[in-house]
């Protein structure tokens, strides 16, 4: 189940939804493969990069390969001008990334940036695990700006955070962009969790619509 909704603040500012997501399967066993990308709000066109990345990731199943594919496209558009190259990366390629890859025994989650990992136990209890790699969002795109601009704590690069959940311990694993924070702790969290466990996609969409003024940031949920 994949849900992406524009945040209320984005509607008020008349800006695009900067979240993107993809839910697919791979292999003969049809294992699940999820990817979401949450564009930087200051990035002029970060939603373009986010959508391209989500389109490409299932083909390569590797964050760096998919990222370099898009970077190469922009590099070819501006290779004679290093300043334009840097600005293009800043405008298009600043987004956090979360992926889930299922295998026979486990779910592997890889993150660059922030968001939430959602686990559902065999007793249908949900846990929302926040992932935050630092005070400033750790955009994987910083790895392609090293040497061009001062990235402060990210001058040494952004590393991917990886964790694995054993299928003996969890029934399902999902991911959500940090827009989920507006639902957690709200007076409709309980209803949200009930619908999430039941995988009622449209009821969840309508619930977010109903409380849209509360959900200020873009939100993507894949489980």
């Amino acid at each position, binding site marked *: 189940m994949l849900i992406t909704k524009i945040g209320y603040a984005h509607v008020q500012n008349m800006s695009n939804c900067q979240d993107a997501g993809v839910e697919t399967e791979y292999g003969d066993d049809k294992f699940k493969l999820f990817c979401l990308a949450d564009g930087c709000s200051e990035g002029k066109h970060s939603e373009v990069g986010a959508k391209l990345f989500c389109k490409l990731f299932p083909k390569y199943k590797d964050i760096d390969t998919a990222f370099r594919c898009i970077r190469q496209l922009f590099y070819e558009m501006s290779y004679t001008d290093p300043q334009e190259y840097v600005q293009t990366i800043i405008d298009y390629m600043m987004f956090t990334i979360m992926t889930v890859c299922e295998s026979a025994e486990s779910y592997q989650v890889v993150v660059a940036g922030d968001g939430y990992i959602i686990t559902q136990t065999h007793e249908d209890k949900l846990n929302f695990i926040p992932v935050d790699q630092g005070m400033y969002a750790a955009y994987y795109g910083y790895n392609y700006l090293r040497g061009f601009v001062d990235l402060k704590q990210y001058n040494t690069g952004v590393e991917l955070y990886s964790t694995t959940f054993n299928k003996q311990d969890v029934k399902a694993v999902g991911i959500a962009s940090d827009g989920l924070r507006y639902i957690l702790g709200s007076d409709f969290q309980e209803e949200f969790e009930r619908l999430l466990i039941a995988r009622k996609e*449209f009821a969840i*969409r309508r*619930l977010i*619509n*109903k409380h849209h003024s509360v959900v200020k940031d873009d939100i993507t949920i894949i489980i």
Partner: protein
Amino acid sequence: MDLDTSNDVLGMDVVEMVNTPIDDLETESVDLICLVLDKSGSMSRFQHVMKDCLDRLRIALVGSKAADEILLSKTLFDSDVIALSGYKPLKEFSADYSVGSVTALYDAIILTADNHLRYSEFLRSEGMNVKAVFLVLTDGMDNASRASFQEARAKVEELNAAEVTTAFICFAATADLRQQLNTTAANLQFRNIADASADESSLRLIMDQVSASVISHSTSVVNDPNNFFSFSSKV
């Protein structure tokens, strides 16, 4: 028939008992298509054709891109408005059409519009995006309503203010009657008015036009409420 929505029944809003309950809707956007059709005695020679047209309409809509978002409601009126079907998904829409006696046009407009306004307000309160078309087809002037012309006009104005696309088909046997129906429709404040001669071929053509217009309405993000009949039928 008066709909009281002041109480929940078994956890459902009363308006959901006449229409489709929201938990049965696998969508977050709907296009409510309301057909208010004359079934007075003068329509008897078109009974089978109308049923066939409604079947064709349903089939055309089922094949459209936004089929999952379309809910159809049918009201058949003569002297009594007793056949208000409520909004249903296309697969549940019945093309049945049977004729009666005289023409309670204003009562039909008011009762059907009330159901529509309650249901669309309910859906919006539950987070749905709602678009709507309210279409009337009649072959004669009102001669049996308890409600007045002014009350019917006020109801159509309420629909227009709620951004419902209002449409009226004058299905007239003579030029004089066509003129009268056109004037009535305009005075009732319907935004879109179309003519059809009272014969089988014209009925089929106008209903095919309705199919094309509904499909365009349901698949467009931005709708012009004054151009409902502008879209070409494929037939």
